[in-house]
């Protein structure tokens, strides 16, 4: 097996008063999309900042591309999109991209060519010579996204890449991310939106309160839970009769009710057939009844616990 692209060994970061990341070890293999998941304030951004050399870990070491090093030393091989987006407002879009390309070690000429290609591809061609401040927020996000990818990095680290994006732009970025992963390069992205991670990631790690809770490939993780979950869809108004059945703790151990749909985990000893029978007998209008692997969301909730999703005050101050 080749060296992992990114390896964290027992890293710890303390801030005044609390520990943001504690003994965190991770391995990100070459290729594919790696999701760094966790509730707000779990330490995702702190971890990424340590990888990128913006913060130094108090303990432990970080290996990139097989050797102990930091993000800045490999800046020409890493594309980084920080959680806090920011551009020079007064600069022209093209000049800005060229400058950020140069900061990564790309020559001026190459940077300009690449910038033109990307602006064209993401539909910002007309804005090339406009000032950043003239762009809408979504367009600025795209410009920032381009700056992350301009130098064809081998490793792309995206901190909450989809937050604040409309569905159309979200889709464009998702396509680009998938394409990068397909070409054999590696994408690491952090998010607290499980549905997105579930659709895109090959591997995930869940962290909460600065500690790793779970990691591995998505299929292994889901497989480990067996097929004890059932996804339900209710017809119009059909859901209200289901309440009594779903509250039967001999039948259902956990419910995630969305109103017109629900995901339930069967109680030990119960089986799918009994659940279906009970629902039909109760007069529930069903549009879907499917035995499924647990969703990442439900795995996440069961692992992290609802209380971890609302971190304590001290954890938030240095998220």
């Amino acid at each position: 097996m080749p060296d992992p692209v990114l390896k964290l060994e027992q890293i710890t970061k303390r801030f005044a008063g609390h520990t943001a990341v504690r003994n965190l070890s991770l391995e990100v293999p070459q290729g594919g999309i790696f999701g760094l998941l966790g509730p707000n304030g779990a330490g995702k951004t702190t971890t990424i900042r340590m990888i990128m050399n913006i913060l130094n870990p108090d303990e432990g070491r970080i290996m990139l591309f097989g050797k102990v090093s930091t993000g800045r030393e490999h800046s020409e091989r890493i594309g980084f999109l920080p959680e806090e987006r920011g551009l020079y407002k007064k600069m022209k879009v093209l000049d800005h991209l060229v400058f950020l390309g140069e900061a990564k070690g790309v020559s001026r000429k190459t940077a300009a060519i690449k910038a033109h290609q990307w602006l064209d591809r993401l539909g910002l061609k007309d804005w090339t010579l406009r000032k950043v401040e003239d762009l809408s927020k979504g367009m600025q996000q795209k410009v920032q996204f381009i700056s992350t990818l301009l130098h064809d990095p081998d490793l792309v680290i995206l901190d909450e890449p989809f937050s604040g994006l409309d569905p159309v732009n979200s889709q464009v970025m998702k396509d680009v991310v998938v394409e990068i992963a397909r070409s054999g390069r590696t994408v690491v992205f952090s998010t607290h939106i499980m549905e997105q991670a579930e659709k895109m990631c090959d591997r995930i790690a869940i962290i909460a309160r600065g500690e790793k809770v779970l990691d591995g490939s998505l299929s292994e993780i889901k497989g480990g839970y067996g097929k004890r979950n059932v996804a339900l869809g209710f017809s119009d108004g059909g859901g209200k009769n289901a309440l009594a059945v779903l509250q039967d703790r001999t039948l259902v151990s956990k419910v995630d009710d969305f109103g017109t749909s629900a995901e339930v985990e069967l109680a030990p000893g119960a089986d799918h057939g009994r659940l279906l029978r009970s629902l039909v007998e109760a007069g529930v209008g069903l549009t879907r009844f499917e035995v499924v692997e647990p969703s990442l969301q439900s795995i996440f909730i069961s692992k992290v616990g609802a209380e971890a999703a609302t971190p304590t005050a001290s954890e938030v101050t240095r998220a």
Partner: protein
Amino acid sequence: MHKLWAVIRREFQARVQTKAFVIGTVLGPVIMAFMVVLPVILNNRETEAKHIVVIDAASGQFGLKLERALAEARRGGGPQAIAKYAVTRVTATGRLKEVRDSLVRLTGLARDTVHRVDGLLIATDEALESGNVQYLGANVGSLSEMSMLGNIVEQQLLTERLERKGVDPVLVHEAQGHVDLKTSKITEGKETGESGGASFALAYVMSFLLYFSMLIYGIQVMSSVIEEKTNRIMEVLASSLTPFQLMAGKVIGVGAVGLLQLGIWVGTAMFLSANAVMIGGWFNMPPEAASQMPLPAISPSLLIVFLAFFLVGFFLFAAAYAAVGAMCNTMQEAQQYSTVLTLLVAASFISALSLFNEPSGALARTLSMVPFFAPIIMPVRYSLTSISWVEVLTSFTITFLGMLGVAWLAGRIYRIGILMYGKKPSFRELAHWIRAA
């Protein structure tokens, strides 16, 4: 190196392409030109003679002498020069008080030229004896006018006294040939041909330029750091550039802008002084008047000293301002913290001004060896008096070392400060940042 260059270029372009830069750069020389041309224009513009009434209550010829001398006074030089005063003499022997009081009531009031009285000069025997001659007028506040008038009165008073003692009037007239002290500065054992006034003007303009440029560009560095912090571009920058590249690039980039602007200004000043007569012509100024313009000659060695000290001074303060910017989160906060630096620059400017009279005194020599003061003091002293190269180089070396020290300290603070948000650091935390590995 390539990355550092990219930061410098970005910083340079971002500044040079602003309207503020273009306006400032163009307006600087325009204002400079007006400062030089305006006094001369104003001086030559007044074509109307001042009407002075000599109230003659003295025995003998004193009043008459005053009347003649005033009437002969000319404004400016050359054949076209016009009379400075229109003079009327009123004999008032025995009724001095009445004449004086009635004329006082007239002075400065009438609008038309015929009846207007601008000033009253009172000639009495007592005045001749004691030397206390009285002048009453609306224009007593004008120092140059009064000193000119004083000269004329003094001369006539002397003549009258000598004649009364029986000295031959012809002899007195000969002895009274015009005396003019022509000042010329000596630098490095050579005559520069520069007058005292021009030398003073040069020192004044220079200290002002140094003061303003260090302050303005220093604050630009600071606000640029704050801008990067507040718009959060700092994270992207810090992940690909070292703090050293960021700080050095910023300081050098802004410094280059300052040098460009100063270069344009100094170049304009040199052009102006070389073509004073021609430029005077644009304002319909006769060549003699143009030569009165206080335009200094700037020697190459002075230019080198000026630019060298500007650069070290700028780097010293800019590094300090960068560190302050890194410590703070908002411009308001930074302004509070940077007051210390601003006061330092202002203190060196003010002490430079106060050293004009004694550019080689003990205080001047001491302050030239203090890094925070030398950048303004030394070029000013150099322009005012002759200073040995040893002293200049010693001062430069000390300032340079001081700058390295400040830059090192600022770099340590900058490194950590740029990624710190939230609370401002206490002095203890600052010390910790500086010591941190």
